[in-house]
C-alpha cells in the first residue's frame, strides 16, 4: 500500500463518519421540529378554545343580566347622552 492509498482511505473514513453525524443531526433536528409543530397545533387549539370561551363570557345575554343585577346599571336616557362624531370637536 502506498501513501496515497492510505491518505484516501483516511479521507473516506472521515467522510463516512461525517455522513453518519449529519444523518444523526438531521434526525435530531427533525424530531425537534415535529415537537414544535405539535406544540403549535396544540396552541392553535387552545387559542380556539379561549376565543370560544371569550365569546361565551361576552354573550350579550350574560352581560345584560350582570349589568342589571350585579352592577345595577340602566340604559341612559336620551337627554343624558352626548353623541360624538368623528372629526367634530
Amino acid at each position, binding site marked *: 500500500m502506498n501513501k496515497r492509498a492510505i491518505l484516501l482511505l483516511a479521507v473516506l473514513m472521515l467522510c463516512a463518519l461525517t455522513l453518519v453525524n449529519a444523518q444523526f443531526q438531521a434526525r435530531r433536528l427533525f*424530531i425537534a421540529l415535529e415537537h414544535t409543530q405539535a406544540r403549535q397545533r396544540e396552541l392553535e387549539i387552545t387559542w380556539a378554545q379561549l376565543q*370560544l370561551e*371569550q365569546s361565551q363570557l361576552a354573550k350579550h345575554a350574560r352581560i345584560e343580566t350582570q349589568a342589571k343585577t350585579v352592577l345595577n346599571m340602566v340604559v341612559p336616557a336620551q337627554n343624558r*347622552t352626548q353623541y360624538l*362624531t368623528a372629526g367634530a370637536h
Partner: protein
Amino acid sequence: MRGTPRSRTAAGRGVPFSPSPVLAVKLPAWRSRVVLFLMFVAFAALAVRAFWLQAISTEFLQKQGATRSVRTLELPATRGKITDRNGEVLASSLPVKAVWAIPEDVEAPAEKLRELARLLDMSQPDLKKKLASDRSFVYLKRQVENDVTERIVSLGIPGIHTRKEYKRFYPVGPVAAHILGFTNVEDIGQEGIELAQQSSLAGVTGSRRVIKDRLGRVIEDIGFIREPRDGRDLTLSIDSNIQYIAYTQLRNAVEVHKAKAGAIVVLDVRTGEVMALVNMPTYNPNSRQGLTGAQLRNRVMTDTFEPGSTMKPFTVALALENNLVTPATLIDTAPGKMTIGSATIGDAHPHGVLSVAQIIQKSSNVGTVKMALQLEPRQMWDLFTAVGFGQQPHYGFPGAVAGRMRPYKSWRPIEHATMSYGHGISVSLIQIARSYMIFARDGDTIPLSFQKLDQLPQAQRIISEKTARAVRDMMETVVNPAGTAPQAQVRGYRVAGKTGTAHKLVGGRYANKYVASFVGFAPASDPRIIVAVMIDEPSNGQYYAGAVAAPVFASVAASALRSLNVAPDSTVTNVIMPAQPVLESL
C-alpha cells in the same frame, strides 16, 4: 459396517482418513465429486436468487422494508371559524374524540363497564346492546369531550378505542341559530351559512409519508402526498349586538301576543349588509335533540306571505313617478267601499276625502286602488320586479325563495286592484325589507350581502330621488298620532315606515288569522337601517300591525341606533300617543 476387505483395497485412489493403513477407507472417487457438484449448484442457486432479489426484482424487498418503517400520517384540517362583523366568534370547531369498540375484544369486569356507561352518559343495557353487536366496529358515542375520553382510556378496557374528530360550538346558541345553521357529526354544514359556505369553510385533510423508528418517533419526512388546507374563516355582516337586541325583542313580542311565529331582519341602508336576522321559534344549535321543523324554519328567507299594506308605498310611488298625483292631491275614499267586478274591497273605517299622503298615513285600501286603476298592470309589474318581488334572490343562502307574482298579462281587474295593496302576491320578509331600500336610499337599490363587505356595491336607480323623498315623508306620517303606527315612534329619532296587517290564506280562503308586519327605516332624515318585523298569528286579542309589530320596530330601532352611535335627528323627546288608535284596512 464398512470394514469389508474389499473396501480396503481401494486405498490410494480415495482420501486417506487415517494414517493407519488398517483404517484407510477406500471410497469410489465419483462420490466426492458428486458432493462437490451439489454444493456448487446450491451456491449457484443462492447467487442467482440473491442477484434476482437485489438487481432484478427489487420491489419486493423494498416494499417489505417500507412496511416496517414507513407510515402515512393523516394531517387534520380544521373547519373555518365564523365571526360577526366585529370579529366575535359565532361558530368554531374544536377537536373531540369518538369512542368506538371492537365488540369481540371487549372483556372487562362489570364495574368497569358500569363506569364506562356512566362516563358515556348511556344506560347499561344500551351499552351492552352495542357491545353485543356482531360487527367488528361499533361507535359507542361520538363527539365526546377530551377530558371524558381521557378517563375512559384510563379505565384500560381492551377493545375500546378513540378516534379524533371535530365538534362545532356555537357560543351565542339560539340567538343566531338561523343564520349560522349547523353541521352534522362529520362537521359538514347542514343548514344556513354552514351549508351555503360549506366548500370554503371545510378544510381538506392532508397526508404525508414519514419514516418512524423503533420507538415510533417520526425521524424523517419522505414527502407530502397532499398538503392539508384549513377551512377559510368567514366574517359575516351580522352585528351580534343588534342581533341580540332583535332576538330579545322578538322573543318578548311573540310571547306577549301568543304568536305562532315571528321574524325580524335588520339591513344596513348604506352597504346592503344584513345586520341581524332572527326567527321565532328558534333552537339551540349546540344540542339539537327533539328539533322540530317549525324551529328549524328560517321564516325570513323561506316563508312567503301576502304582505298587505306594506306594498302601498310602491303604488303611490308609481303614481307620483308618472305625475298622476302629487302628495297633496285629494282622493275621495267615501264610502269606504268599492266594487270591482263581482268583488268588493273596503277600508276598516270610511275616511272620506284624503290626500295621497293621508292614504299612506291611514292605510286606505280604496284610495290606493283608485290610484292603481290609473296605472297599467305592466308598470306595476315592472316596479315590483325591479325591487325584487317574484325574483329568485342571490344572497347565497340555502332555501331562499322567490315568492310569487303572476305575469301582468294574466292579471284580472280585481287582481290589478288587490295587488296595489299587497294581496294576490307573496313575498318573503327579506324581500320586502330589501324593497324598501328605494325609499331609504333616495330611489336606488343595492344587493344584499350576508358577508362583511370591503367596498360599496353598485347601486341601481329605480325611481327618482324626488319621488323617493316624497314617499319617505308620507311614511313618516304613519308614526304620527294620526297614523296607523304611533307606537313605532322612537324617542329622539325621526322614523318612517308602513304597517301591514293581512288575513292569512288557509286552504285557499282568508281565515281569521293574521300576519302583522311593520317595515320601516330610521333616522328618516338620513336612513341608516331598515328594520322589518313580522309577527305570524298574534292571538292575544290584538292583531293590528300598529299594535303588534310597530312597538317591536320601535324598540329594535332605538337600541340599534344607539348601538351604531347614530346621532338623534329629532328634538322631540316626548313620544305622543293618540287617544284613539287608527285602524288600518285589511
